[in-house]
């Protein structure tokens, strides 16, 4: 049996981050990835001859600076411009939100622009306080450390320094729904719709669901190239970013193996000892880092008799059913969205008319049906990176809500019907678009589950809602990367602080392990 010091299961960006740091600490580290590609949900794939697409993640908006530093990550693929967001409206034309989540807003009245600026400032301030808690291992109840106390104190101080009113307002807003806040500050339906869309993308909530504002805070805690809330399309597709993580792990000396699906975590008396691969090969190590969905780690790979039953029940109860479908189109020509200036086609294009539109798109998802009138964000990656499509042709990448994991009618018939709905919607905003389609790839949550091995096909490897956050992410007894199985650690989006291409779960898990659990 081969042996090493550390095994990382899963070659997503978090697994690569953890592997890089463990290898850099001098541990002989082997990373095992089931598929033929590294990068997890961040891959560039050919969808038709000459057309390459990002899947399923397509935008970078929260790559953490501490991860870039720790890995000396090559971020050359992000050297382009921060994308604006264009929220379409057939009657009024688009509103444009530019820079770091709307440093400049165009297409709205001056009063509305001022109102947005005021709300933006408030949300960024509040997000900056929350960010402190995303950048470290969550505190443990009853074992609060000095560092935790420091962070609580600093957060409290900066809150109070803004005056009593701000402190009170933050406590008021923290668990509110995004719709009420948007209604309170704004009057333009397009801006309200943007907040509603961004707060709920990838989460099983509608804008009027309690606590939906948390999703927006989470987005605003992200930054790229020093711009909070900004978003980038990596050159060469999202796979270029994955490649940067891969290179960092290689440089650090980690052994990276693809097509090596782990089928079992080997353990004895509740202590992890190694893994078994699909072919029966075994590798032993005293340290196993599962950079995969927590349900996969604990329910599929670990033997049921090796962990406590109450804990396994908690894991079974993690809510993790995806809602987002990914559409990639290979197009004969670059589409034209009505009312959008040619140069603004590089934007992230959001189709959401108003809060009600987002809410009504959510309603059917509660009952196992897709939205008949979905909301979506669209990018045209080949516009800024012509290498992604043959000359003159184009690619379109869209994330579409809501597409419930468990569709009552079944996705076999549901998928073509949903695709037609999305194409009809695109045709309304970019007339004739569907007639230029050369190839279409629609990934539903079950497709994403199967293709990328993400149980539930969920953006965050588990709902990012208040009961599954911080000290309860993924569940209380596994919230500080260590798990009830000795020697087994979690490091994926399912761990604190959550999903998106940040690298933080991988970084924090590795740091926790390297510090000996302090």
């Amino acid at each position: 049996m081969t042996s090493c010091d550390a095994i990382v299961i899963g070659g997503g960006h978090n697994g690569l981050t953890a592997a890089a740091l463990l290898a850099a600490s001098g541990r002989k580290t082997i990373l095992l990835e089931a598929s033929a590609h590294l990068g997890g949900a961040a891959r560039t794939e050919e969808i038709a001859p000459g057309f390459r697409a990002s899947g399923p993640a397509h935008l970078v908006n929260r790559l953490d600076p501490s991860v870039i530093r720790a890995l000396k990550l090559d971020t050359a693929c992000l050297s382009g411009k921060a994308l604006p967001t264009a929220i379409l409206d057939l009657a009024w034309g688009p509103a444009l939100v530019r820079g770091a989540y709307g440093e400049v807003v165009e297409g709205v009245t001056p009063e509305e622009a001022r109102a947005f600026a005021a709300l933006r400032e408030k949300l960024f301030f509040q997000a900056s306080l929350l960010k402190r808690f995303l950048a470290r291992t969550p505190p443990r109840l009853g074992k609060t450390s000095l560092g935790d106390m420091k962070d609580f104190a600093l957060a409290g101080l900066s809150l109070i320094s803004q005056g009593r009113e701000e402190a009170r307002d933050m406590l008021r807003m923290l668990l509110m729904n995004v719709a009420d806040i948007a209604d309170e500050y704004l009057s333009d339906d397009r801006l309200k719709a943007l907040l509603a869309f961004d707060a709920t993308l990838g989460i099983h909530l509608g804008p009027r669901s309690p606590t939906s504002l948390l999703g927006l805070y989470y987005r605003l805690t992200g930054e790229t190239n020093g711009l909070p809330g900004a978003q980038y399309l990596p050159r060469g597709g999202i796979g270029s970013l994955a490649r940067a993580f891969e290179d960092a792990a290689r440089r650090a000396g980690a052994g990276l193996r693809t097509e090596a699906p782990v089928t079992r975590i080997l353990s004895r008396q509740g202590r992890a000892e190694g893994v078994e691969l699909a072919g029966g090969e075994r590798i032993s190590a005293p340290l196993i880092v599962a950079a995969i969905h927590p349900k996969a780690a604990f329910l599929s790979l670990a033997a049921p008799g090796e962990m406590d039953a109450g804990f396994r029940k908690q894991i079974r109860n993690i809510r993790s059913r995806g809602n987002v479908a990914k559409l990639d189109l290979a197009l004969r020509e670059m589409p034209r969205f009505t009312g959008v200036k040619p140069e603004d086609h590089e934007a992230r294009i959001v189709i959401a008319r108003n809060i009600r539109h987002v809410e009504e798109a959510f309603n059917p998802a509660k009952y196992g049906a897709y939205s008949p009138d979905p909301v979506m964000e669209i990018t045209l990656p080949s516009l800024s990176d012509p290498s992604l499509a043959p000359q003159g042709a184009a690619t379109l990448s869209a994330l579409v809500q809501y597409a419930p994991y468990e569709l009552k009618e079944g996705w076999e018939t549901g998928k073509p019907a949903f695709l037609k709905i999305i194409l009809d919607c695109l045709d309304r905003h970019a007339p004739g678009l569907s007639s230029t389609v050369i190839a279409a790839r629609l990934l539903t949550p079950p497709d994403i589950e199967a293709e990328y091995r993400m149980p539930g096909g969920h953006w965050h490897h588990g709902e990012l809602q208040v009961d599954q956050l911080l000290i309860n992410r993924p569940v209380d007894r596994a919230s500080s990367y260590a798990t009830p199985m000795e020697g087994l650690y979690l490091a994926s989006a399912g761990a604190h602080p959550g999903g998106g291409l940040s690298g933080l779960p991988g970084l924090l898990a590795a740091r926790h392990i390297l510090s000996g659990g302090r």
Partner: protein
Amino acid sequence: MALDRLSARKALQNHIDHPLLETPFHPRIEALSRSQEWYVWAGYRAPLSLTDEEMEYTALRNSCGVFDISPMKKYRISGPDAEAFLDYVMVRNVAKLGIDRVHYTCWCNDFGHVIDDGTLFRFGPESFRLCCQERQYEWLSDAADGFRVNIEEETRAVAGLALQGPTSCRVLLNAGFSGVEALRPFQLARFPHEGGEIVISRTGFTGDLGYEVWVSHDAALSIWDRLFSAGALHGIQAVGYGALNRCRIEAAFIVPNQDFMTADHVLRPDRARFPDEIGLDWLVDPAKPYFNGRRAILEAREGKGLRHVLVGLEVEGNVPADGAIVYHRGKHEAGIVTAGIWSPMAKRNIAIASLDRPYGSDITKDFFVEIYALREGRYHKLMKRATIVSRPFVKLERRTKTPPDDF
């Protein structure tokens, strides 16, 4: 139409006429009951005594007492992973439990706190029955996720009678169950009865020679009649819980939610108990594969996690100390007596107590119990010296002797 529905519904609501469940033996017990002293046992109407507690105790220790144990919860656990599953649920090593054998065991939640105790019967390589006090279906089902096992609730389907006392073997032999004399303690065997099959195990809750007879629900009355006519000349007597309780205290057997609180019942975090805190440390097998609560139990053992200890006390005088507070040197509260009687067999005033460490572990002397004796409308507060003694308080050779002495 509406009226029809109403009367149909009313007909289904006759549980109101019988608020308590009755075991399949109830018609016989009811007929024998002169004292009409009943208590509620897990939703069943069960006898506290039928005639006189003293006489029933005397039957248990001198001839053959019969106690209806049908309200015990029973679960049939079977399937290819049954052994591995039970080995994972239980603190005791189930791989070591032979076929046609029974052992006493307990199981814990994730935090190492005892959920319940019970007896585990092994009928075959893949077939077991768990017999216990509290409902466990949900816990067992939750724990079974990932195991190829089938868990079947058979509390109602299977009725049970305990025959305890020196003539119990003779009674069974008279009833025609020859071969029963060869059963060793914790062994079981199958016997024919009325075209069906019954199970007799040499088990019990009295620390004495005794057997438990397990029959299907519909064979209950016929087995009762068969035993009672066979035992008439050997002092067979139906007994209630009062007499049984005395015997079990003499044997120092503990009762869940009496001598300790089960983990699912406690509200206060410091009330649940590790096996070690209720005298069950000997069941825990750290050498076997992982089992539920293992990590927590071993951590408690290594650190300072064990806070209580169960002890046997001998109390001066003859007033039962049940429920009394235990003091060290008459000043510092050290724990509580969870069960206490004057033992006719031991001729001693005995008690089971739960002490807070270091009392009972490091400090083992100078204890007193504070008994409030109610005498004709007035409490007499007695401070009685109590000494930690070894358990069981009554140890009987006939409990294990095989074949048993004949009568």
